[in-house]
């Protein structure tokens, strides 16, 4: 049994005027223990929506259209928000958000936020116990634990903050950790430290699998086992890191790589926007290839023919002409 399974997951937003926006369409993948999956794509491609879907967090106006998400065999679909909140978030699937700089409540001390997390998921735990557990966990991170726990976020360095966030998110040993650009605001040295810490935690078995979302493909190269490229709500190519980085087959992946590889790793200014044109409007039903409008090698029928995932050179590609 896989640790994490996603089958044909489609998600939509329902606007106030009854319009459906299909933000995520037909996403499938499975992950095994110890695996790190990188997801890359332009901003607005549906990454963040997918993240909510993967956690079973369907807060209106976000609704699941179809498909299933299973963690350790347990489905996250059709469960009450309270159930998800209490039993899934943090315990099964946990999130390391983007921009840890602001992710911690500025008016609370780190230990209080962490204690709130424990209190939210466990019944009748006494404070002392919570703090000793916290200290134990934070001692793993190679920081001045007492100082960090007793500080307000503003008093911490960026690295300390990011590590605190990771510490808090993994406090309850989730099976899956979703990290959204966890290192984007950090300098190169700190980035390395943080990534090392993530590997450590994975190795120690504190969490089992991880999804690493970024638009910095070069970073994924050092981190991920597999990479999924997302475009306009769809996975367009999924393969091993080697395959995606050195041998992309989908035109979009190729374009993305072209824009990417020239950039120095860690330089966030260069965003993968060098591709001309804009993604399609997901409110309108799209029949053909979603990338066709911007695709340098598009053929007329691309706009008509629905593109399905197919296996090309050992990886999944959503392009009938890829080879």
């Amino acid at each position, binding site marked *: 049994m896989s640790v994490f399974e996603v089958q044909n997951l489609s998600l939509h937003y329902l606007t106030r005027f009854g319009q459906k926006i299909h933000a995520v369409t037909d996403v499938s993948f499975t992950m095994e223990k110890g695996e790190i999956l990188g997801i890359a794509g332009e901003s607005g491609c549906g990454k963040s929506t997918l993240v909510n879907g993967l956690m079973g967090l369907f807060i209106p106006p976000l609704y699941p259209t179809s498909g299933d998400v299973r963690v350790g065999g347990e489905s996250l679909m059709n469960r009450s928000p309270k159930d998800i*909140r209490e039993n899934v978030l943090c315990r099964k699937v946990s999130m390391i958000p983007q921009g840890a700089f602001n992710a911690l409540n500025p008016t609370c001390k780190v230990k209080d936020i962490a204690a*709130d*997390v424990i209190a*939210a998921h466990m019944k009748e735990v006494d404070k002392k116990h919570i703090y000793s557990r916290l200290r134990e966990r934070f001692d793993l991170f190679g920081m001045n634990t007492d100082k960090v726990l007793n500080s307000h976020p503003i008093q911490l360095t960026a690295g300390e903050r990011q590590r605190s966030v990771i510490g808090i*998110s993994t406090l309850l040993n989730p099976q899956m950790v979703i990290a959204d650009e966890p290192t984007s605001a950090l300098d190169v040295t700190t980035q390395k430290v943080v990534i090392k810490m993530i590997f450590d935690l994975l190795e120690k078995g504190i969490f089992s699998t991880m999804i690493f979302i970024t638009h910095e493909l070069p970073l994924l190269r050092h981190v991920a086992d597999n990479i999924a490229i997302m475009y306009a709500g769809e996975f367009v190519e999924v393969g091993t890191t080697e395959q995606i980085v050195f041998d992309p087959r989908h035109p979009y992946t190729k374009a993305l790589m072209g824009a990417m590889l020239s950039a120095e790793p860690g330089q966030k200014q260069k965003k993968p926007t060098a591709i001309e044109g804009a993604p399609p409007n997901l409110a309108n039903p799209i029949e053909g290839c979603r990338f066709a409008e911007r695709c340098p090698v598009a053929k007329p029928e691309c706009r008509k023919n629905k593109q399905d995932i197919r296996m090309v050179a050992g990886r999944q590609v959503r392009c009938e002409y890829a080879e």
Partner: protein
Amino acid sequence: MLKQYPTLRYILQRGGWYFLTFLVAVTINFFLPRLGANNPVDIIMGKSASGLSAENARIKEESYLKEFGLVKVDKGEIVRNAEGKPVKASGLEQFANYIKMCFKGDLGTSFQKYPKKVLDVIAEAVPWTIALQLPTILFGWIIGNVLGALAAYRRGVFDRVFFPVALLISSFPFFVFGMLLVYYFAVVLNWFPAMGGYAQEIIPSFSFEFLRSAAYYYVLPFFSIFLILAGGQAIGMRSMGIYELGTDYIKYAKWLGLKESKIIAYLFRNAMLPQLTGLALSLGTMISGALITEMIFSYPGLGMAILTAIQNNDYPMIQGCTLLITISVLIANFTVDILIGFLDPRVKAGLQIGKGN
């Protein structure tokens, strides 16, 4: 020298500015009324001279000028110029005299309420003003902010109904609201008394009867201010709350699966900080703020005293009242400055890094 005690330095620095503000305000409040064209004695004489001969009127006028310290006095006699007219005391001389008296704890005697002491007038009126305003402002602030935070967090139907209503309520001119309350609940329905601070047949004392009566008479004035105040606060809080709702830490808290009540608490705690400044301002200005409510309900308080003092150029009264307002505004602001320094770690951290505020 205080580098190692940044908090203390911050407090002293703020305090220093407030003290300076205080000095300037007292000076301005002293000289401002005296810039006006009319002399308080002229106003008094206009009322009390009819039927007097010119000679007697002059004598009376001079005795007032002397009594109020508006002319120079030497050994109990008015100093006169060559024509025998009294020599006016200059503004600076009056100011020096005023400051001297202040240090003795004497704010002087009211011209208009002669021979009442300014301090007595204030001591009689201020408890009512505070009793009317303080709970109203505090309750209005708390309830408005809680509702605003709820509206921000819940959105949906509650917000869609609550928000326009709050907006409409705070658009309403509060004095008309007060008058309509009087008309409907006092005159038409006869549920509540129309005016006064307590029943006329009661003498103020610490008896149950007085307190009950005061509470009964308190209802309409309270609501006349409360609803509109709470509405305004709720709107401010709602928009602060929605702003905070979009911040990363709230999103993260949701992802962490924190309880709703906890998230609202986070929201409230952060959105409240800017609202505190508003609270300080209303608390500071409450001394003069209840004037219209006093008029509409014939409620006891300082507002009317200030208005009549200014209309009649009652210098000592104006000075006394503005001194009180100055002190309360500045203390309220100072307190909030310090409080925010303690409540908001961002400000505190800023101090330690040495950025000032």
